């Protein structure tokens, strides 16, 4: 598997004048290293505020440069993105890397017909004239499981259901057969019965086109069923990564264990769920020790002194925990 994406030391911080008293800079991403092979699927898991979205938006270079500072290296097929001009970046977005967002309603133009928006993406990416692009787009509609594609092709975004809009968004994102698709909570706003269909569509299209996937989600079930590898984020850092099923069966970081413990288990009705007490640290501050230490049930003195680095714990497994070697954590097997 060749290397498609390599991220080194990525940091993202936002100016936040409303919190001037606390320094005025929100440090959303605090040093991420990540490698993704072509065709590979990776889940980026974490709770709100952990920096998942800020990190993937940096790959697309979607942050507003006047309010955001992004540092570190992001290389796509060996080409450094931060060195590119905005014009060069436009050639990358959509063609090499595409993104699908949580809310499809705000990602489409409300005054243009959905079909025309898909056709435009097709025409731009394949250099087709309007007529041929429409024909291709219509085919894509049918393939994506949109019922009566010809009728829906002429409708506007507000006449679509959330699930149908998300299908159209996926078609637009994949129109140019990009090498990497970033899906940021693509099904969070949808009903579970529709969620499955959307995830299947992404899966099918991805396999057909050989597209790699970064799936940003907080849903452990989706992670388990849809991705080969997973990285767990906490307070702007990756605290653990590895093959998804291995990570779920035997987590190495206490935070991952806590997340899995918080899921109701079958056959334990009425029993108390284990919880992670306390709060995530403020995005404006940096404590000297492990950011999870104040909430960790395995905390010891060294944890409060030094931030643990993400290091290799076993083949393909990396963890940022001072006590990872001695702890025997519980997964969901």
């Amino acid at each position, binding site marked *: 598997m060749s290397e498609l994406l390599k991220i080194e030391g990525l940091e993202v911080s936002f100016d936040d004048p409303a919190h001037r008293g606390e320094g005025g800079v929100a440090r959303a991403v605090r040093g991420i290293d990540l490698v993704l092979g072509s065709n590979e699927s990776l889940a980026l898991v974490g*709770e709100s505020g952990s920096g998942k979205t800020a990190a993937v938006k940096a790959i697309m270079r979607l942050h507003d440069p006047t309010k955001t500072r992004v540092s570190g290296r992001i290389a796509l097929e060996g080409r450094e993105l931060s060195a590119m001009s905005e014009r060069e970046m436009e050639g990358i977005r959509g063609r090499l890397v595409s993104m699908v967002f949580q809310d499809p309603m705000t990602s489409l133009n409300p005054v243009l017909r959905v079909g025309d928006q898909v056709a435009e993406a097709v025409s731009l990416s394949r250099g087709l004239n309007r007529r041929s692009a429409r024909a291709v787009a219509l085919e894509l509609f049918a393939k994506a*499981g949109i019922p009566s594609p010809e009728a829906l092709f002429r409708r506007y975004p507000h006449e679509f259901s959330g699930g149908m809009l998300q299908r159209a968004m996926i078609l637009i994102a994949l129109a140019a057969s990009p090498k990497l698709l970033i899906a940021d909570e693509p099904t969070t706003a949808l009903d*579970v019965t529709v969620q499955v269909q959307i995830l299947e569509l992404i899966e099918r299209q991805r396999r057909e086109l050989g597209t790699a996937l970064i799936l940003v989600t907080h849903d452990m*079930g989706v992670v388990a069923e849809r991705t080969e590898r997973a990285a767990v984020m906490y307070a702007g850092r990756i605290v653990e990564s590895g093959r998804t099923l291995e990570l779920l069966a035997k987590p190495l970081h206490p935070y991952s264990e806590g997340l899995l413990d918080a*899921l*109701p288990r079958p056959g334990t009705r*009425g029993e108390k769920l284990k919880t992670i007490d306390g709060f995530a640290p403020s995005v404006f501050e940096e404590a000297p020790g492990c950011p999870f230490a104040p909430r960790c049930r395995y905390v010891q003195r060294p944890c409060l002194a030094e931030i643990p680095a993400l290091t290799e714990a076993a083949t393909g497994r990396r963890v940022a925990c001072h006590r990872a070697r001695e702890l025997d954590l519980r997964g969901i097997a």
Partner: protein
Amino acid sequence: MSLLEAIGLRKAFPAGRTDLLGRRKDSLRAVDGVDISVGEGEVHGLVGESGCGKSTLGRILLGLIKNDGGCVYFMGRDIEEFAREDEDRLRSGMQIVFQNPYSSLNPRLSVGSTLREVVRVTSRRNASASAGRDDASRRVDAALDEVGLPRDVLPRYPRELSGGQLQRVGIARALLVRPRLLIADEPLSSLDLSVQAQILNLLAGLRESRGLAMLLISHDLRVIEHVSDRVSVMYLGRIVETGPTDELFSGALHPYTRALIASASDPRRALNRKTESAVLPTMMGEPPDAINLPRGCRFATRCPYRMPRCAQEEPDLLDAGGGHRSACWLLA
């Protein structure tokens, strides 16, 4: 009779295209013939997807929305009559916890003011002169303890609290009037996973400590399964299956319930699938337009087991024994 008993509830909202005078021509039958009950100390889980009418049903039960048809009995009395003659007692008997704790608290009132206001109103009603200021703060403190909040939240405002803390304030507010029934409408869905577990534990604990009955409305099957004694599944305004939790989850009868269970992503299933290599049964398409519902069974358009009869006649809930009922012709 159960603590709460509702029979034949109906509610339609004007919807769809407008005529020349701007009147809506169609109607959306949000709740379309629903019977539901909650026993003393029981947790009844109501599960369904967005637009199925579960929130409307919850609000009808509370008397916050006027139903078009059917009756709601609380503590053996029709709530309409109850509301006319004894509204305070009705309100103190039944309370609601909302989905979004930010929008359900007054942003200009501190937590302490919000909670003391509840005590002030309820003690005025009880007309006991002893209910002075000391008593009020004692009751507020006790409520904070019960929901696991420290006293130092009292001077703070909603915007200064986290979602989980706010949801605890919302629950404390409801508890202060000492209700017998709590209707919790998606109390977890705006919260992060680790916080959801905390609030779920809190709700389950209240049932133990107070014998509080609960109608838990949620789209999340795992949450419903974890705390409910009984579960009802709602689809497009009707209850399509109801039964004791274990039976419903181990032997779902309605194709919609089965599809819901199969669609809910479950990390354990993925781990086991390495060996089983079973393909997930999924459901076709999306719900039909709720304004122009198809004739017959309203799930038929998506149902893999559709029979000719399903497009003609709508099934009522049919008895499968042991309190388990399903509105499906497969059972007939």
